């Protein structure tokens, strides 16, 4: 029973209720950091860390948080973890930290984290919340990695900073600039929604979902 619940949570967050392309949350950083694969990996690691641990903390404290100021408390918990991420990045990989600039700080206002804390961690036990946080972080990460991979490949003919396409390749500069990000994400959503959405609707109608809460912040 218990492992069924864990599996259910993971399946929801990674697949049918994916934060990025189903709930359309956390788009800011999805677009901003995906022009280079290396930055994206760092950003995703930071985000998984923050979602997991902030969910765990909120869940541990859920009985003591007064409901009127819960948003403020959640924000402060998230901010504390983001500061840890920021300090660690500055100390160990200063180059990438400088390139990510304000986007590390903006993990605080990433709606995915707030949404999960609000919709899931406040009403579920700690271990399950930790799993929920980590898996929604992963659901976010793999979408970002796919987009970053395509954008870096098309935009600069490279993967992880190494040029893989030969001299014949003309860089699509637009891909590493703002419009490319919008188009890429739109295409991604189109492909996913167009090919899997009917399946998803059937799934949501068929099975009761104890963990679904549509985290909209």
């Amino acid at each position, binding site marked *: 029973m218990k492992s069924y619940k864990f599996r259910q949570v993971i399946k929801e967050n990674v697949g049918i209720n994916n934060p990025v392309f189903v709930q*359309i*949350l*956390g*788009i*800011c*950083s999805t*677009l*901003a950091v995906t022009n280079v694969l290396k930055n994206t990996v760092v950003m995703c690691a930071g985000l998984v860390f923050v979602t997991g641990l902030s969910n765990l903390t909120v869940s541990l404290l859920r009985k003591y948080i007064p409901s009127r100021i819960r*948003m*403020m408390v959640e*924000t*402060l918990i998230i*901010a*504390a973890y*983001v*500061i840890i991420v*920021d*300090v660690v990045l500055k100390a160990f990989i200063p180059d990438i930290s400088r390139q990510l*600039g*304000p986007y590390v*700080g*903006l993990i*605080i*206002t*990433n*709606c995915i984290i*707030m949404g999960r804390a609000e919709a899931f961690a406040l009403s579920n036990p700690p271990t399950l919340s930790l799993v929920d946080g980590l898996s929604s972080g992963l659901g976010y990460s793999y979408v970002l990695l796919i987009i970053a991979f395509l954008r870096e490949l098309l935009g600069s003919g490279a993967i992880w900073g190494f040029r893989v396409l030969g001299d014949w390749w003309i860089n699509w500069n*637009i891909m590493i*600039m*703002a*419009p*490319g*990000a*919008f*188009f890429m*994400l*739109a295409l991604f*959503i*189109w*492909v*996913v*929604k*167009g*090919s899997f*959405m009917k399946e998803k609707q059937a799934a949501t109608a068929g099975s009761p979902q104890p963990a679904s809460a549509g985290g909209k*912040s």
Partner: protein
Amino acid sequence: MTDGLFAFGVFFAAIFTNNILLTNYLGMCSFLAVSKELKTSFGLGMAVVFVMTCTSAINWLIYYYVLVPYDIVYLRFIAFIIVIAAFVQLVEMVIERLSDALYAALGIFLPLITVNCAILGASLFMVIREYTFVSGLAFGAGSGIGWAVAIIAMAGIRTKLNVRSKVPFGLTGAGITLIIAGIMALAFMGFAGMISIT
């Protein structure tokens, strides 16, 4: 360049060449969710302009007069988010007391603003680029106006789109909005080179 002239440049650059939404992708969540109607996006846009201008000023003062002297710059995230949340709450209470009409127009959008990443982002950019107080204020106001311009334009396009076009199923909602945003970003790239701030 004198400070006043520089601030003027920053103001226009924040609206056009470095639009906070279309080149820095900030505030996308509410941009996608609230841009369905012209009237509501206008209200939200105005609220963002006001809050962003004021919080940039307050955050600048806090950063340079509290955080830097005491060498606790790493606490800036917490300081900024508290300032923003407290300011929004305060404004909401003041507006509720003073004017019913204004509260009906702006009040409902204020809670949304606390989680709008553009507000926090503007403060962080301001600190990273080391603006002076005047240009920081100009940057805050300009970014707010730039954001409002983008969301109002998008709402205008979307109302027309709902009336007369058939969008393929997979693209409905967020998909088509993102594509329009991409085209708008392309159009705004036409301003690039006019002014640059860094």
